[in-house]
């Protein structure tokens, strides 16, 4: 009796592969297919109505789509860079502390435990123009008499969202960079001191290159879940006022469920998937380069 036996590694990986095929790949293929049809939730038979690249053409010529696209890229760029800088600053501050570093580290991780929905809700409350903490404080201190419409004015709403986003994720950077700071060998730092480097020179030429891989890891991890911003935006402004804070993800959700245009929404969804993959691959490549430069190997 000859029975074909699977190699053990495949057997072990099979559950993971099956689950991911069923829950991620299959639906994605379906959505790829439906993005070429005029599928609407309200008319299920429209899924067979093949319309070619029409949805993609429509998306690419849709001003609303490009506005949301631009805003998403803007949010990602501003938020990721701010988080990186603040995280680096925070990590340096904490690493210089001599007593109670453990407690500080624990406090630093506080925002990481918050569900993005909670973060959205929390800042919706804090930035509320009527009962929010920010306006209450400003008014009690006499800085302003009128209530500032944090979430009602387009630009201020974008600011509030970025603030919320940065608040939750700076700690991811800070924690990872701190881990990097601990891992720096002491010899080069001492050598720099002996050679009379200023503290800026030491930071720029020794600390920073060593910490760089950790920054890229944080970037890669973060760009994997940037779509978390969907939850925050959904709760804080729901894309409003008048679509001023509409991001790709809220636009997709709205088109798919509220307007029931599933095919069109899936076409836009693919664009956002490519955006996420692009960012992730970009940072992973940077990570590999930084690693080889430091001789850590792959």
């Amino acid at each position, binding site marked *: 009796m000859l029975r074909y036996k699977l190699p*053990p*590694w495949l057997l*072990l*990986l099979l559950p*993971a592969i099956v*689950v*991911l095929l069923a*829950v991620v790949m*299959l*639906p*994605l293929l379906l959505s790829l297919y*439906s993005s070429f049809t005029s599928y609407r939730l309200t008319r299920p038979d429209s899924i067979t109505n093949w319309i070619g690249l029409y949805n993609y053409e429509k998306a690419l010529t849709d001003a609303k789509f490009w506005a949301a696209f631009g805003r998403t890229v803007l949010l990602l760029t501003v938020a990721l860079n701010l988080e990186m800088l603040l995280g680096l600053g925070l990590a340096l*501050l*904490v690493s*210089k*502390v001599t007593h109670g570093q453990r407690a500080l580290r*624990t*406090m*630093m*991780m*506080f*925002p*990481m*435990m*918050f*569900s*993005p929905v*909670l973060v959205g*809700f*929390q*800042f919706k*409350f*804090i930035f509320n123009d009527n*009962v929010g*903490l920010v306006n209450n404080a400003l008014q*009690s201190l006499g800085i302003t008499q009128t209530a500032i419409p944090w979430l009602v004015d387009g630009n201020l709403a974008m600011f509030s969202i970025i603030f919320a986003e940065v*608040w939750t994720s700076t*700690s991811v950077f800070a924690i*990872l960079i701190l*881990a990097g700071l601990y891992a720096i060998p002491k010899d080069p730092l001492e050598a720099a001191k002996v050679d009379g480097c200023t503290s800026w020179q030491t930071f720029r030429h020794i600390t920073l290159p060593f910490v760089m*891989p*950790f920054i890229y*890891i944080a970037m890669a*991890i973060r760009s*994997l879940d*940037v*779509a978390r911003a*969907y*939850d925050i935006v959904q709760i804080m402004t729901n894309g409003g006022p008048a679509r001023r804070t509409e991001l790709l*993800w809220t636009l*997709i*959700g709205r088109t798919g469920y509220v307007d029931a245009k599933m095919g069109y929404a899936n076409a836009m*969804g693919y664009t*956002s*998937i490519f955006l*996420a*993959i692009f960012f*992730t691959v970009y940072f992973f490549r940077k*990570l590999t380069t930084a690693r080889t430069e430091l001789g850590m190997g*792959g």
Partner: protein
Amino acid sequence: MDSNLSHRLKARALKLAHLATLFVAMSIICLPGLWIVLNSFRPTVEIMAKPPVWIPNELNLDHYRSMFGGIGEGGVPVLTYFMNSLVISVTSTVIALLVGMAGGYAFARYKFKGKAALFVGLMVTRAVPGVALSLPLFIVYARIGIIDTHFGMILTYVAMNVPFTVWLIDGFFRQVPKELAEAAEIDGCTRWQAFWRVEFPVAKAGIASAGIFAFLTSWNEYALASQLTRSVTSKTMPVGLLDFTSEFTLNWGGMCALAVLMIIPALVLTFLVQKHLIAGLTFGGVKG
């Protein structure tokens, strides 16, 4: 003497500035959460008061009492949502861990063709944004009739967590020297026994932290849950939080109480795992 003094003053000023900056940064990190906790104990009248009441006159458990009593705060069945969240998160975490252990072990211990490609493939599935995935999943689940069920949510979260658990557990198994398991096999263990008696206990702490990550992801997830759950039978707490906003007036106090209920398990688990959290992330990434 003079330069000595000025040098000392400068050092002291620097130290003061350092502490002040640190204090401000930590306040910004901690205040929003504390504000939520504080408001969950305040009566609605005081939350809405104009001009604002800074020093609370009265703190009570009203919001918690109405949340757990009978129908729930403002008609929101918080207790049911809590149970849904718990069942879904725990089950999906256990399954994701088992699948992740098998996968991580395969990546750490076996050599095979296309290993790197398969690994990248697994990670890329993690990059698919929840919203983009929720549309086709909604269609599929509606078709096979597992929408708005615990089973559907568990399946979804297992798939969401598997890439990450595989990645983390792979890193932890790699830290276990191969020789340990080989020695056990020479001593007469089967591979299976060697795994459970030698490799698993060494990597246990790391696996636990992967589990907590998976639990937190499921516990906090919103984008998929908001589309794939429709009613009390499977709605989780993050989705339930929105029930407070759908009404004409916002029940801030009730929302805060629910928020606190959501944070506590996350807080406890993160404290338990914080050491492994950093180790896991950096080992997986840098030394990977």
